[in-house]
């Protein structure tokens, strides 16, 4: 029993990342009808927003400290971050320590901007072209974004630690009446799960309860009629692209402490997220979220020793296997709408 709970918990954080990326992919697909292969790159850009923000906060300059001397007897030079000077020692350290959660504030405008530029500058010209062309051009864009990041940050992963308060693990089992130390769960992963849940709820609430969201939903259902009613749907869809980019971006920001950002992390997630979207059903937002968590949890179940003994290697292929079975038995995915992407 405790093993099962451990696996469910392990699946949650990966599932949250899949769900967030898949949510953005589906938003783009549902609104603009574009298959965005660069979405993984947006996730990666988000993770690097955390890196950039951390570096910005740690910017420092050399100050001569009279009270200390180096080994030659000269006054020692010490690196002092600017934030120490501006906000004082304690507040400055706290800022640097909390840089990952704080970089969300930095990432949202940046990613919105990236998304809007991408849509206006490139994707706009591909609405009328076949899906294969959209896949190819966004695939090319993903390569370009990835290489730009590689040029500036190198090929090695960059460690981006979580705030001190969230290091260590929570003894989750004690709450449920198990022995101590049987079910341990890192705090940050718990944070990631709740964060993902809040974002997903936020996006759904935005679409469901605001006028803007209502118009967008109407546009997803019947774009032409909304246009005929005198609503500039293009502008709203452009914003939705930016929103999807921002969702992918902050998913990346918060994931940075779990997996150290490197330039190809986006591609690794993209392949799986596409499988998630297809399993969930192209164009269905609840489907994407449900499939994301489902596949994340299935993946961690499949890597249990009891299962791999019985079916060796199943943990490597479970997601793809499920995708093949779902696509062949339920051609529209788990919650796909009729008439979407059926050609």
């Amino acid at each position: 029993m405790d093993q099962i709970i451990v696996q469910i918990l392990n699946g949650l954080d990966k599932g949250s990342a899949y769900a967030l990326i898949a949510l953005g992919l589906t938003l783009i697909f549902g609104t603009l009808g574009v298959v965005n292969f660069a979405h993984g790159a947006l996730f990666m850009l988000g993770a690097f927003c955390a890196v950039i923000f951390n570096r910005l906060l740690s910017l420092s300059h050399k100050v001569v400290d009279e009270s200390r001397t180096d080994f030659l007897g000269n006054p020692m030079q010490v690196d002092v971050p600017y934030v120490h000077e501006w906000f004082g020692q304690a507040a400055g350290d706290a800022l640097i320590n909390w840089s990952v959660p704080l970089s969300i504030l930095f990432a949202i405008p940046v990613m919105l901007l990236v998304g809007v530029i991408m849509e206006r500058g490139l994707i706009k010209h591909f609405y009328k072209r076949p899906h294969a062309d959209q896949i190819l051009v966004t695939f090319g864009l993903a390569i370009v974004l990835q290489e730009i990041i590689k040029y500036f940050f190198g090929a090695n992963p960059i460690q981006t630690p979580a705030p001190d308060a969230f290091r260590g693990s929570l003894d989750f089992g004690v709450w449920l009446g198990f022995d101590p130390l049987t079910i341990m769960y890192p705090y940050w992963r718990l944070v990631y799960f709740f964060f993902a849940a809040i974002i997903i709820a936020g996006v759904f609430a935005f679409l469901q309860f605001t006028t803007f969201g209502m118009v967008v939903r109407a546009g997803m259902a019947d774009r032409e009629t909304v246009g005929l009613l005198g609503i500039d749907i293009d502008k709203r869809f452009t914003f939705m692209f930016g929103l999807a980019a921002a969702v992918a971006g902050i998913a990346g920001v918060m994931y940075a402490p779990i997996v150290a950002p490197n330039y190809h992390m986006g591609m690794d997630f993209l392949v799986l997220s596409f499988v998630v979207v297809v399993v969930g059903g192209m164009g269905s937002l609840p489907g994407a979220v449900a499939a994301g968590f489902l596949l994340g949890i299935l993946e961690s179940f499949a890597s249990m020793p009891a299962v791999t003994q019985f079916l060796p290697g199943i943990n490597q292929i479970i997601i793809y296997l499920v995708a093949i079975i779902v696509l062949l038995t339920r051609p529209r995915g788990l919650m796909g709408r009729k008439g979407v992407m059926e050609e």
Partner: protein
Amino acid sequence: MTDQTTQTGAIAPQADRSRAASGGFLGLGFRDFRLLMIVVALTLLAPFLLNPFPEGSAMAQFNAGYPDLMQRFVIFGIFAIGFNILFGLTGYLSFGHAAFLGVGSYAAIWMMKLVTTNIIPGIIASIIFAALFAVVVGFISLRRSGIYFSILTLAFAQMSYALAYSVLTPITGGETGLQIKSTDRPFLDNLEPGQIGRANLFGIDMRASQILEVGGWQFTFNVGYYVCAVVMILAFYMAIRIFRSPFGMMLRAVKSNQQRMNYTGLSPKPYTLAAFVISGMYAGLAGGLMVAMDTQVGPERMFWTASGEVVLMTILGGAGTLIGPVLGAGFIKYFENIVSKINSDILHGWFAFLPDGLEDFMVAIVYPFVGKGWHLTLGLMFMAVVIFLPGGLVEGGQRIARLFRRRKAADGATKSAAE
């Protein structure tokens, strides 16, 4: 403009058949025969053409005429030709073609380890096994089209990769892959104890090379390369025949309008499956040749980036054209092996004639695009091709040629008017 090309493509078969009936060239129309002859000449003379700069000169690093790279040009050419039969004709975008390449490679290396180090049985085995695998994958994947098809093929390829990497280690050698070792005793060969079998064609070593030195130039003629070249010419000839056959017309029909095809009482399924299997066989052949050249294989050959690479090659060169995929493959492999070696010292050498400040500035601008950053250039070029030149480099060439022809025609018109 693209309409024109597709129209000539569609009309050509009838014209070809009439020519073939009147004892034409190898069953090809005149233009196709000319194209085949150009490809034959280019591949056979490649050791000269790819080494235009004398050894030791500053430009010698742009020479691509060494056996290893030339082999890669033609092998990936075969891979891309095969991919193009599927994507270029039917429009089904497979993101998992590297799986067939990998299966072919594993089949070939086992033949060479167990049966004989002669490459022929290995290559035949690679084609057969790739075909069998393609039948299975194709039968399942082709039940869906569009992006679903892409995801299904991707899923199959990633599964093969993951399995080859982990569970199938007894067969695939896992992470380290497979090589021919001194303990391998192929039962048809009479190897002395401790002797390592070498890939050969009836006793001719694949690695044997003849070096011709003319003045400062050095040309290498490698047996392995010529074996690959002959295979590629055959593969290219087969591709032309497929493009011009009634079967090829059916595949084009699948691409242009499946619904209409259904209404005329034809099922697209057998045609697309046949195209899928044929292109899988081409991939297997390429995999077998790879093993025949370097006698080793690892699972990374099946990773999805390898599948992505062949997509890049085909699109960059020109999907749906005959020569495009070969050009694209050569182009990307040239970039990967030559342009990636340019470092900042070499750049400083190039811009040395400029004043110091300007030199550093130019180097700083160019540097991100060459050397280790060659992927950036590739990505930008690929995007540019998809956006502006859907027909790839071939369409670019045609446009330029047409521009010249029009200018010449205009010149002729003004001349005749003056007379």
